[in-house]
């Protein structure tokens, strides 16, 4: 399985919207409202104008499979944040694709933005599998006090995790033995 990252283009918008509006992704998202095409286009114009964000289609073996976004990133920033990471194509679930994508993205950031020393992310506490996965990548919980009460759902807690670069370098050595497959 080979993961590559491709910059989001206009031609990807419908696919991203389909993934984002699916129950698979929506039910673990902070914002659970459906996204209209009009909203999607406005979002695309906004991200194109930003120089502190990265937006990628995650391609697996040449097939569009997921989406990832990083915010607050730049050549002089010491910190950035995962804004989004998911495998939207269900045919790639349950076989290691998410972990491989996370590895590729984290390594891309730390290799290409040498001033970045921490990466953070936020996950709903109810999303236990993703929390577990991030911890295996070396993320540690920094804060979990922010309560979110989402429409139609019970209240949840937003968990903030951080990954230090020096921790990543240790974890990477171990994980590299797995990803070659």
């Amino acid at each position, binding site marked *: 399985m080979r993961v590559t990252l491709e910059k989001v283009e206009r031609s990807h918008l419908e696919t991203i919207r389909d993934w984002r509006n699916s129950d698979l992704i929506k039910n673990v998202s902070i914002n659970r409202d459906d996204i209209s095409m009009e909203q999607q286009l406005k979002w695309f114009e906004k991200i194109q104008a930003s120089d502190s964000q990265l937006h990628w289609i995650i391609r697996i073996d040449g097939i569009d499979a997921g989406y990832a976004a990083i915010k607050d990133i730049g050549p002089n920033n010491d910190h950035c944040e995962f804004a989004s990471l998911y495998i939207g194509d269900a*045919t790639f679930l349950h076989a290691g694709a998410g*972990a491989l994508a996370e590895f590729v993205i984290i390594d891309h950031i730390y290799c290409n933005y040498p001033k970045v020393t921490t990466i953070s992310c936020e996950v709903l506490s109810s999303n236990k599998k993703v929390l577990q996965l991030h911890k295996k990548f070396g993320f540690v919980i920094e804060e979990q006090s922010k309560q979110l009460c989402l429409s139609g759902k019970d209240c949840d807690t937003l968990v903030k995790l951080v990954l230090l670069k020096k921790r990543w370098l240790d974890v990477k050595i171990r994980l590299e033995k797995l990803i070659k497959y």
Partner: protein
Amino acid sequence: MEKFIKNFADQLLDQDPSGLTEHTIFRDLEDWDSLTAMSVIAMVHDEYNVTIGVEDFRKLITIGDLYYYIKKNQ
């Protein structure tokens, strides 16, 4: 099968092999996630010299399914 179950359990955190059988649905295990999937695929390659593709791996449900897939493809 017993040795395979032990090799499988070694890919999970704090998993006692005695708690696993060939009928165990591995994706229901508490420690199962995307990285565990990668660990298992890597273990199968290293220990049994069998490479499992994404499509084939998705069809495997139990530890027994995994074991017999390896046997068939060795």
